[in-house]
């Protein structure tokens, strides 16, 4: 129940609450539950910028799960792949993900299988070729759809696009997300990763100076329903759009509402904010229409 509640908080973008719920559950968890809870906690702690604490949790989970050849070990392997992927340790990540995939298939754990297939798709984009990675992504998406996990489907889209961007193919990442946007919009319910996808696409479009299209995407979103990372991305994108069109008052207001510390993406967002501040400063040297 607590694990599900934490996952619900995570899917709502509230990673801090997700981590707190798992930490509380750990106090009364049995050893077998503890391994999987610590794997969940690893992801949540990493996402709130506590990378070292996340690695500690994963290490402890490994001592509990390694060698068990059960769901706990498959979860630990999948989480190891996930964390390595986020640390851009691609070779280590793919080893763990492949081992997780094999074990998940042996045990018939469809959720873990879909998750690690998604990871492998992102890794193959970087390590092998975009074509192979994209083909693998379709396999992962089919697996995620088979278990009805729309959040995972959207997450795979976002991660594959991020891998394309990592490879310097920004146009490819944009085209990929543009192609996937209608699919996500047709989902019967909103998903965190779907929202993330829209915002990631809006950011890419903004950076390519396709401002009207970016503004159309964020303009259709209700900020009251955005939490955590999605709220930050929404405000950052709005600020970038406002700065690019020379509406400096609006850009300043969005910047004022940014609170980007304490997340895994904080360094990246700080870099974006620095760039944004430069754009706004340059805007003062040009005639404005606001």
């Amino acid at each position, binding site marked *: *129940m607590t694990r599900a*509640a934490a996952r*619900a*908080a995570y899917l*709502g973008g*509230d990673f*801090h*609450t997700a981590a707190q719920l798992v930490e509380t559950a750990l106090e009364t968890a049995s050893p077998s539950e503890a391994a999987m809870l610590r794997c969940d906690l690893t992801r949540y702690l990493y996402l709130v910028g*506590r*990378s*070292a*604490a996340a690695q500690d949790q994963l290490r402890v989970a490994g001592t509990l799960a390694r060698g068990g050849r059960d769901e706990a070990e498959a979860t630990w392997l999948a989480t190891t792949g996930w964390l390595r992927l986020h640390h851009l340790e691609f070779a280590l990540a793919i080893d763990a993900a492949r081992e997780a995939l094999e074990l998940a298939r042996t045990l018939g754990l469809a959720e873990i299988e879909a998750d690690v297939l998604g990871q492998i798709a992102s890794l193959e984009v970087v390590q092998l070729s975009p074509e192979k990675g994209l083909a693998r992504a379709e396999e992962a998406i089919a697996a995620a759809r088979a278990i009805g996990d729309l959040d995972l489907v959207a997450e795979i889209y976002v991660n594959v696009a991020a891998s394309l961007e990592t490879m310097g193919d920004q146009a490819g990442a944009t085209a990929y997300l543009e192609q996937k946007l209608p699919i996500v919009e047709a989902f019967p*319910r*909103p998903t965190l990763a779907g929202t993330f996808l829209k915002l990631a696409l809006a950011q890419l479009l903004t950076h390519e100076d396709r401002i009207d299209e970016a503004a159309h995407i964020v303009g259709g979103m*209700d*900020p*009251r*329903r955005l*939490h955590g990372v999605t709220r930050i991305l929404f405000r950052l994108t709005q600020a970038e759009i406002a700065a690019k069109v020379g509406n*400096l*008052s609006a850009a*300043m*207001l969005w*910047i*004022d*509402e940014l609170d980007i*510390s304490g997340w895994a993406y904080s360094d990246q967002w*700080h870099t974006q*904010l620095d760039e944004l*501040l430069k754009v*706004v*400063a340059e805007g*003062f040297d040009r005639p*404005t229409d606001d």
Partner: protein
Amino acid sequence: MSPHLGASVTLLGDDGEAITSMVVFSDDHQIYVAVPGEWGARPQPDGLFFEVTWPGTNGAHVLPVVAYAEEVAHGRHLWRLTISGEYRFDQRRRYVRVRVQTPMTIANLVGASGDSERATMLDVSETSLSCAVDDVTWLDAPAKTPVRVRFTVADLQFVANGVVLRTTPIGSDHNPEGARVVVIFEHRMDFADRLRRAVFEEQRRRIAEERELIERNAPEE
């Protein structure tokens, strides 16, 4: 921070549905609200995430909660909303306002003297500022009283005419130690452009200071 008894609140669901209810009890950890009529015949919640929001001055209070139905008497239910995240206030401002603590002057242009008085600027945006003055007679200045202010933002000096929006006592209402005066500037495009840039510079300084503070206080991992 939680809504007061009897307050009308809106519960925003993860799926975007907005339903209204009323607060019947609250403390630091939970809020009890009436079962929303719009909920209809759906199963009562047992761990559903919502954001409870209620209006405030210039914005909306927002509190993440988890809702549980609870029987309080003979089949009568309330919803217990357990606070599950950080309170926030969604602003409805149109312009950035930066907080400052710098000396300035303000002159009341009504009457003969029009002498400038010393004041401390508290915050400033491209359209307005607020300042603290020792002279409690400012509390008698009605809205729209014309004033002239001189102040500095980001090392740039400004002189502007404006009007009083409101005044509020500093300290106790009965024995105030001074007055807080909010001034709206008379609209001049070039002035607003110049001031906006200065406010931005101040904003940029503040962002840099905040980041330095966070980095200095970050736990070493």
